[in-house]
């Protein structure tokens, strides 16, 4: 499995929050949306997948590698944005992207063309020489997404990527993800609602109270209704059978 895989992944925090026994597979060339309400466990699962947390039980793999044990091998293979964009306020848009490219193992001579390409792709050209601290929240998010995608990783993990993006930013992101998936990347995006990116997914998994509770059929006209029905049914079931 060279995409994204979680098998029985569990990580619980004091108070019971976290994820328990999550199974998830994202094949290469597919976009997979992870949807759930706030606090459902989406960010925790993404942190597990990226090695920010160690699972208490179960396994996670990115591009076939254990993210906690693979050292720097994942750098060129993975692009991600979880919670905050990798954008330093004192650096310009271009400098931030150059830094991100270097951190993801792009060779020095290739960095300028890599940065130029993503500046155009995500509509950031006019912010290239603007310090990140002077950018709007949406443009900082766009910068973080550019940093995560510019090295054309085989595995992409984005937590609520449309946060603060304007409609044009959402469209640019959606197209960028479709291009990368078409080129063979495994893409996992999370969202607390069925936004534009979730709607382009090939597969949709619903997470609630730290567990995978089912999937949705992309393209279904009643997607939102089906989502809330699943979550509501799960909430009712948990009330009847306390954990």
């Amino acid at each position, binding site marked *: 499995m060279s995409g994204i895989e979680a098998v029985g992944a569990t990580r619980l925090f004091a108070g019971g929050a976290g994820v328990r026994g999550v199974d998830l597979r994202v094949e290469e060339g597919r976009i997979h949306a992870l949807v759930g309400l706030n606090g459902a466990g989406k960010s925790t699962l993404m942190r597990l997948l990226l090695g920010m947390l160690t699972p208490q039980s179960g396994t996670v793999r990115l591009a076939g590698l254990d993210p906690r044990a693979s050292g720097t091998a994942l750098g060129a293979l993975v692009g991600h944005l979880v919670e905050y964009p990798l954008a330093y306020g004192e650096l310009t848009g271009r400098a931030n992207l150059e830094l991100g490219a270097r951190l993801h193992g792009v060779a020095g001579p290739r960095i300028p063309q890599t940065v130029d390409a993503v500046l155009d792709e995500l509509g950031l050209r006019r912010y290239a020489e603007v310090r990140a601290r002077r950018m709007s929240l949406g443009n900082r998010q766009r910068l973080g997404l550019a*940093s995560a995608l510019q090295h054309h990783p085989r595995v992409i993990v984005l937590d609520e990527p449309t946060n603060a993006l304007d409609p044009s930013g959402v469209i640019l992101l959606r197209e960028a993800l479709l291009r990368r998936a078409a080129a063979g990347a495994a893409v996992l995006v999370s969202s607390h609602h069925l936004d534009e990116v979730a709607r382009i997914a090939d597969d949709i998994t619903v997470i609630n109270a730290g567990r995978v509770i089912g999937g949705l059929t992309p393209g279904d006209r009643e997607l939102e209704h089906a989502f809330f029905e699943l979550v509501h049914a799960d909430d009712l079931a948990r009330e009847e059978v306390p954990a």
Partner: protein
Amino acid sequence: MTGFGSALRVEWRKARASRVVAATALLTIAGIATIVLSFRGVAASGDPQLIAKLGEAGAAPGWPGLLAIALQVSAPALLLGITVLHSWLAGREFADGTVTGLYALSVGRGQLASAKLLLGVLVAAGMGVALAAVLLVGGLLLGYGPPATADAAVLARVALLAPFSAVVATPVALAATLGRGLLAGVATGFVLLAGAQVLVVAGAGAWFPVAAPALWALDPASVSGAAVAVALAAGALVAALTALVWRRLQLDR
């Protein structure tokens, strides 16, 4: 380029663009220079009460008096400035939320932490050289003439005091890491400073690593080579531990 080379390059680029690093270095040097030159003004005033407060060495004329005051003032002031540097370099990633972006990279977090610590020492070295230069110019402007060999040696020790202090202050970076922010590092710097004062008075002297740089700069003959080696080794050990904590870091709180 190696992973560590890339890490150092990345951290240098951030530090170079940062106002925090430049302002900390500038304010620390300007503060020390202002205090030292003000005290020299007091010594020159001839007021016996004020001169008594400066002590015999500080009231001495010319270079010896200026450098005696500089050594007294520089040790704690540099440690405080370096505390801000180490704390910011390590703690900002948590405060700014950028730490989540430092996973699954071609450069290891341990390498990034090592680069931050080395950069702290290098910036401190630059601060030391700049401080020595400011004191040299100040002494020349006060009409002391070129420093004698013994006075030049003290100036060199003032320059070396800064990077030496940066090495023994590595617990600040470890605290900023464990505390997930800047404040834990800053608080640790204050504890180290106060601890050094208390332990020196209690007789531990240069065997307490944080006190070693100041005591060595004041009087190298009174500090054994072993005590200096212990201080440097302790700083390096904490630096290695900090890098290990970064390498194994989990974002679980």
